[in-house]
């Protein structure tokens, strides 16, 4: 018993302070991968059944709505292409670094609530697919979270609503920068350190600012739900809603951060080199 206690304490210290035991964690996570797959089987069967036994009418309706959506998206895309070329042109004029769109990988969620005190998910892609710790994860609607531990076949990711997760953002309307941090609540996060006099309104949307060098710039992050300004407090309490469908998305996208320019004074690159 005594040996085990000492062993646990040593392990915890190593894990917390030095991240030396990541390989052990990765090894065990490979061992429990089959168990995870087995837990996932009922959901898989349910999805397969609902896909297979769909009526002709639902399929037709779905097809129609998808067609309409496709049309709309195509129309949007035309505008986007134009704006993109214009943007490139302007950037070239300004001689600033070019934005190269990053590579993405689609992963599927394997399991959700792991620890009742955290907001985490497990995805079915690991170091085999080139996933790395600190990789941003998005869904079709916005930023979802960040990969924290990578196993061979699966990895764990922290969601934006976790209390330990913070995200640098920028408002679309005003360009104001802020930090949004999770509350542990399932579909809420809060904006920290915004003064009572900040120019914000309920319904204001914000995107990632890319300042932390973790998330690429410009992914939708969320929308303000309520603002409480109490003059006795130094900062306003601002509650926002993530734009990602954290409880509904089953497919997520892993993003490789775009290499922003090759210049020597690229802050993100300098930052990474300093770390390694």
């Amino acid at each position, binding site marked *: *018993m005594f040996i*085990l*206690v000492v*062993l*646990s*304490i*040593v*392990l*915890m210290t*190593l*894990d*917390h302070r030095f991240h030396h*035991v990541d390989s*052990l*964690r990765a090894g*065990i*996570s490979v*061992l*429990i991968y089959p*168990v*995870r797959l*087995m*837990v996932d089987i009922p*959901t898989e069967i349910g999805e397969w059944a609902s896909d297979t036994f769909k009526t002709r009418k639902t399929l037709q309706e779905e097809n129609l709505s998808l067609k309409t959506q496709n049309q709309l998206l195509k129309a949007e895309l035309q505008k986007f292409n134009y704006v993109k070329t214009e943007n490139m042109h302007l950037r070239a004029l300004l001689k600033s670094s070019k934005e190269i769109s990053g590579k993405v990988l689609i992963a599927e969620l394997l*399991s*959700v*609530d*792991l*620890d*009742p*005190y*955290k907001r*985490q998910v497990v995805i079915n892609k690991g170091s085999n697919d080139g996933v790395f710790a600190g990789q941003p994860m998005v869904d079709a609607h916005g930023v979802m979270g960040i990969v*924290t*531990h990578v196993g061979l076949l699966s990895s*764990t990711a922290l969601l934006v609503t976790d*209390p*330990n997760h913070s995200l640098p953002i920028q408002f679309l309307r005003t360009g104001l920068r802020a930090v949004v941090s999770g509350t542990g609540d*399932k579909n809420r996060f809060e904006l920290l350190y915004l003064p009572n006099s900040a120019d914000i309104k309920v319904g204001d949307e914000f995107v990632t600012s890319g300042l932390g060098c973790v998330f690429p710039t410009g992914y939708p992050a969320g929308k303000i739900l309520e603002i409480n300004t109490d003059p006795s407090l130094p900062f306003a309490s601002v509650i926002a809603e993530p734009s990602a469908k954290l*409880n509904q998305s089953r497919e997520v996208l892993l993003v490789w951060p775009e290499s922003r320019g090759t210049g020597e004074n690229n802050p993100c690159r300098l930052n990474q080199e300093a770390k390694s």
Partner: protein
Amino acid sequence: MKTQERRGSSVIIISFLVSFMLLMMPLPDFMRLARPEWVAMVVIYWSMALPQRVSVGYSWTAGLVVDVIRDSLLGQHALALALVSFITIRLHQRLRVYPPGQQAATVFLIILINFLIILWIRGIIGAAPSLWQILIPTFTTALVWPFVFILMRYVRRQFQVS
């Protein structure tokens, strides 16, 4: 004699695997906090029924797996479950003859100690859950315990695990 003493290792391993699966099973959001500690219950049962076989080491290894599943600090559940197993082995002769209610009450206390360990460790690294967050799962575990006990006893007798 020796061969008879070590029967049904596969049953023990499968019971642990099932408890891991129950741990990973998705639950609706309002029940998230109320998930009973399945692995701890399996540890308590085997430590009580077969203290000569399922030692503290088994429980420690199971705890390590729980740490990976929950992505918590490696070793915290291992330490807590090893302690749970240790206490249960110390009390196994009393626990076996307790009526169900008293047994559930003892399990409640053991699980509470398990959570206190986790609370301390989380407190040290600066992410302590609040008190009701550890009391709710302790209650549900104690509520579920009598049924788990009956089921596990049936399984043990059926497969003659000894």
